[in-house]
Structures are given as structure tokens and as C-alpha cells.
């Protein structure tokens, strides 16, 4: 026990003093959280559309029109000359531009109101045009004193707000745990390559302590990563964590163990640090993008989906997403965890079979 404690402490000191190691384990996931957090929660609050309004003549109605449009909260109004507004539309600074002809209030007749919009954004334009139609319909009714029959009363219902970032945050944690498991195995390769493992073979130190202390350390780091990522997600980017922390911890530990085991399995096939890095990267890189941790697997072409369904990261991502932000994966929680457990056992057996201390 004393030996375990001392080797464990030595391991931690080795790690903490290794700047690049600490970068990958702690700084890298946090940077990821910040980058994705800023991208997907940016543009604070409601979306707004800038609309150009051009009056071709002077009319008392103009003021009514301008006020009515300003009253629609998503519209950001700009009034200018025709040329200036059309130019602004062409350079993408306007969603659409509306030209109101000179209106003679003493002699009301039919007027054409032209609306110019960017053809490539016809989707959003058509929605905006119909709300503008609504605005003009109201003005027309005011001017003609027509009776109103239908009243639409909209009643917003409070639903849980889910942003894209809610989907991604658990994915970042899953990624961090994968990196910890896979890249963490390099430390053993390093000790083996520098013949430190061999040298320890002449001391009474039981060799399994070298690994068990390292595994314990990495499990603890995975919990630390969890706390950090959840903390930043919760307080800086307002991600609601739906279940208690201990449930998340449980999933993290199961996942961390699966990836630590996978990491050790991969390096059993490596003779050197170099080949170890190669083998791990060949597995790690595709898995990062094929596991649906950053976007749903429905977005992927159907021929890669069978691969997605094998990868352990898929299931760690599923489980964490459900537990942290309440997004169901379509796979039961127990099944996610079972698949991770199967991965742990299988990779552990292969690791034990092919393990090389020297």
C-alpha cells in the first residue's frame, strides 16, 4: 500500500510537470468548450432582420407605415434613398428593401409596393414578406375603417430551450475521456522505451503497480475533466445539466475505463513510441468524427452508419448527452453502458494476452 501510494504520487508529479500532457488533458478540452460555446451560442438573444425602407414621395401615411414596421420586434429598419438601399441590399447588408410610392391620402387608389430581396435567401425573404403583408393589411384596414373579424392571439408556451451547444458539450467531455484513455497509454510506451520499466524490474516493486497507479490517476483526471467541463458549460454558456453529478461521474468512469483499456490494447501492437502514436491516431481521429459526438448521426451518409454503431465513443456520447442535457439518443441508457462494458472487457482480454513489459 505504501509502495502504491508512492508510485501514485510519483505518477501525478510526472504528469503535472509535463506541460504538453497537461495541455492535452485539461487545456485542450476547455479550449474546445470555449470555441464551440462561442460559435453556437453567439449573437446573443433574438435574431433580427435589417429592412430597407424607401419612400418615393412625401405623404402623411409614410409615418404610419414606418411606425408599424418598427413595431415588429425582429425588424431593424433603415430608411434612405432608393439607390443607397438597393446598394446595401446588393452588398448583403439588407435582408430586403421595400419601395413605397408616393401616396395621395385624399385620393386613395391601388398602389404597388415593390420588395427587392436576395434570390439566394428567398426562404427567409418569403417569411419576411408575409409579415410585411400583414403590416400593410393592418394599415389598409385603418385607412378604410374596415371591420376586423379574426383575431389571432399568440400564446407562447415555455419549452426547454435546447441549443446546438447543449448537444455538443457532452460530446466534448466524451472526446476528452477518449483522448485521456488513448493518449494516456503513451506514458507506458515512453517508460518502456526509456527502459525505465525494465530498470524497475530489478527492484521489489510489483510491476502491476506501475499500471494500476496510472489507471487510478487517469480515472481521477476524468472526473476532474467532468467537473471542469460541466462547470464552464453551466456558468458561462448556460447549459442546463438535468441529472445529478454522480450519475454523470458513474458514466464517465465506465467510459474512461473502456478507453484506458482500449489505449493499452492499441499499444500492445506497437514496438516503439513512434509506431504507438501512429496506431493510436489511426483509431482516434476517425472515431472523433464518426461517433456523432458533435452532430447527430442522421447527418452522416448511410454507408458510414454501421461503423458509427460499432464505435465505443458513440455510446459514451449517447450516455453523457442523455444524462447531462437530457437529449435522448434512441438507445437505452443501460444498453449504452453495456456496450461500453463489453468494449472494456474485450480490449482488456486482448491487452492481457498480448501485453509486453519490455
Amino acid at each position: 500500500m505504501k509502495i502504491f501510494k508512492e508510485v501514485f504520487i510519483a505518477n501525478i508529479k510526472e504528469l503535472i510537470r509535463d506541460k504538453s500532457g497537461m495541455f492535452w488533458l485539461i487545456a485542450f478540452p476547455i479550449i474546445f468548450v470555449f470555441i464551440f460555446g462561442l460559435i453556437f451560442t453567439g449573437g446573443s438573444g433574438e435574431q433580427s432582420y435589417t429592412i430597407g425602407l424607401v419612400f418615393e414621395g412625401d405623404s402623411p401615411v409614410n409615418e404610419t407605415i414606418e411606425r408599424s414596421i418598427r413595431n415588429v420586434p425582429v425588424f431593424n429598419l433603415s430608411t434612405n434613398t432608393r439607390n443607397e438601399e438597393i446598394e446595401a441590399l446588393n452588398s448583403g447588408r439588407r435582408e430586403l428593401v421595400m419601395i413605397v410610392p408616393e401616396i395621395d391620402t385624399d385620393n386613395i387608389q391601388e398602389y404597388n409596393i415593390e420588395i427587392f430581396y436576395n434570390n439566394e435567401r428567398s426562404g427567409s425573404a418569403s417569411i419576411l414578406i408575409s409579415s410585411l403583408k400583414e403590416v400593410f393589411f393592418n394599415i389598409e384596414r385603418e385607412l378604410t375603417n374596415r371591420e376586423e373579424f379574426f383575431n389571432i392571439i399568440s400564446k407562447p408556451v415555455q419549452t426547454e430551450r435546447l441549443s446546438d451547444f447543449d448537444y455538443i458539450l457532452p460530446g466534448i467531455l466524451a472526446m476528452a475521456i477518449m483522448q485521456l484513455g488513448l493518449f494516456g497509454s503513451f506514458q507506458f510506451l515512453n517508460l518502456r522505451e526509456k527502459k525505465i520499466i525494465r530498470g524497475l524490474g530489478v527492484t521489489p516493486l510489483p510491476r502491476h503497480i506501475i499500471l494500476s497507479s496510472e489507471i487510478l490517476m487517469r480515472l481521477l483526471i476524468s472526473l476532474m475533466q467532468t467537473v471542469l467541463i460541466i462547470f464552464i458549460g453551466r456558468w458561462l454558456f448556460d447549459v442546463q445539466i438535468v441529472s445529478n453529478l454522480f450519475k454523470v461521474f458513474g458514466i464517465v468512469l465506465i467510459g474512461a475505463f473502456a478507453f484506458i483499456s482500449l489505449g493499452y490494447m492499441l499499444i500492445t501492437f506497437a514496438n516503439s513510441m513512434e509506431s504507438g502514436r501512429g496506431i493510436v491516431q489511426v483509431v482516434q481521429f476517425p472515431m472523433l468524427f464518426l461517433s456523432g459526438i458533435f452532430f447527430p448521426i442522421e447527418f452522416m451518409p448511410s454507408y458510414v452508419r454501421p461503423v458509427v454503431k460499432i464505435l465505443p465513443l458513440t455510446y459514451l456520447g449517447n450516455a453523457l448527452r442523455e444524462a447531462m442535457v437530457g437529449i435522448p439518443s434512441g438507445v437505452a441508457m443501460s444498453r449504452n453502458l453495456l456496450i461500453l462494458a463489453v468494449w472494456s472487457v474485450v480490449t482488456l482480454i486482448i491487452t492481457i494476452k498480448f501485453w509486453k513489459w519490455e
Partner: protein
Amino acid sequence: MSENVIEISNLKKYFKDTKALDGVNFNVESGIIFGMLGPNGAGKTTTIETLTGLYKRDDGNVSVLGLDPEKSLKKLQKKIGVQLQSPSLFPRLKVAEILNMFGSFYQDSIKVDQVLNQVGLVEKKEEWVKKLSGGQKHRLAVGLAIISNGDIIFLDEPTTGLDPQARINLWKVIKKLKKQGKTVFLTTHYMDEAEKLCDDLVIIDKGKIIAQGSPESLINEYFKDKIIEFKDVEFDKKFKEEIVETIEHKKISFEEKDDKVLIYSDNIQRSLKSLFQLFENHNLELDDVLIRKATLEDVFLKLTGRVYTDENL
């Protein structure tokens, strides 16, 4: 006679087709400094690593402190301290920290401060291992062996690569271990080191023990003679023949590489007389004349027929 702490008989170890150890026999008495001397690749490291459990032997019997390393390895390892040529140093641990970790492996380890003192690393206590110089790393590796407080301390070429002062300091450490009643088993390829330090030694070459005894007894056994050494100033063949014919000798060797002539003789007076006579006759001057006792290098030369220098190791 005191008891043997190491007994080795007919030890064989092969690496594929290479016979690293080809039937090695020797015993080591308790409480002495025992040296294993030989060129690189002779089998010194293989011997240490077989005795301490890193290799399984292919044949023969080995007993260290009454234990067979293959049968009771962990039990044995608690009683010995080992310094390997490639020390197991974690690069980002501090000197005191790694000593502390190694100390925890042993029941009755020595205090860290005491070890630091012995190997002269007190000032480097808080330094990261990877920032130590080569010599300091070496001394730390010796410290990691000492901290075990083991009955036998194995040191594999402990002074290789050290500057002269550091070497002398390490010799002091080794002598101190002996005073504490420990047995020190060391390998070296330095003849002078073995001669000055060891109570008993074996000379190993190509996986075979070619001689065993105290440095003194080895010299007496193989060289009761003395040696006259002088500079070969491009003597021609005829003159060399004349040297061999006229000078009283047991053996004469012309070291072309070092431009030296060595004359082994058991009647140094007569040899010298004839030598001076010869040079006077030819009106030549003798350069760099030296009369000395034979050293282990001479023993090695006589036993193997090869000159023992660093270049041809």
C-alpha cells in the same frame, strides 16, 4: 574463510546464436568488493542482469544470498540493491522524490538525506532528474541502489563516463559500503579501478572467465616479471631483431599502435644492462624509458593476446 553470498556454476546465457555467457563459474565472498572486469560485450552486464532477475539463464546454477533468482525473485530483490547501466529515472521527478519512491520499495531502506550525502547530490536534491548532468545521473543511479540497504549492492559500470574527481568520490562511497559490512559486486572496464578497489575479481572475455583472484595475486601469478617500456622511434626490422637477440627477456612485444616496446623480464638488471649496451653501440638514445610492475592490462594482454585499450573493446 567467510561464507559465499554468490555462487555461480556453469552459468550459460544465449542470445540467439551469441553465447553471452558460456559456462561461467565463480563465487563471491561476503563483505568484499568484488569486481568483474572485461571489455564491452564480454558478458559483464549479462551476468549482473541474470543474477538480479532480468534474464532467465539457459543453463547452470545460481545462488544469491542462498536464493535462486528464478525461483524466489521478489524475496531476493528485497535484499539487494541494483544499479543498471540504463537507470530507471523518471525525468520529471526531483532527485529527492525518486530516491523517496525507491526507498518505499524496501523494508529497511536508508534515509534519503543520508544517500544524498553519500553520493554527493545534496545540492541537487530539488533538481529535476532530466536536468542533471550525465555524471550526476550516474551517481543518482548508484544512490538508488544504495537506498535499498541491501546485503549485496550490484553496480554495473558505476564510474563509466565520470570525470576523475567524481570517480574518486564514488570509490569512497563504494569503500564505505564495504565498511558497513555490505558486499559490493561491480563491473568495470577500467583496469586501474579494479586494481585499486577490488578485493577479489574475475576477468571475463567472450562469455568466459579467464582468471580469478585478488589483483595482487593475479599480477603475481601471471607477472612475477617486471616490465621495461620505451619508445619505438621507427626502429627498422633489423634493429628489432637485434633487440630480441641481444636483450635478456621472457617476452618482448612491439606495440605498433602506441609506438612502444615492452620487455618482460625476471632479471631486470641484466636486461637493462644489455639494453643500454645495444643503444650505445648504435649511437641511439633511449626515449621515455619506464620500469614498472605488470598491471591488469598486461594480464589481459597475456591471457587473450589482445591489447586492452578502449579502442578495440
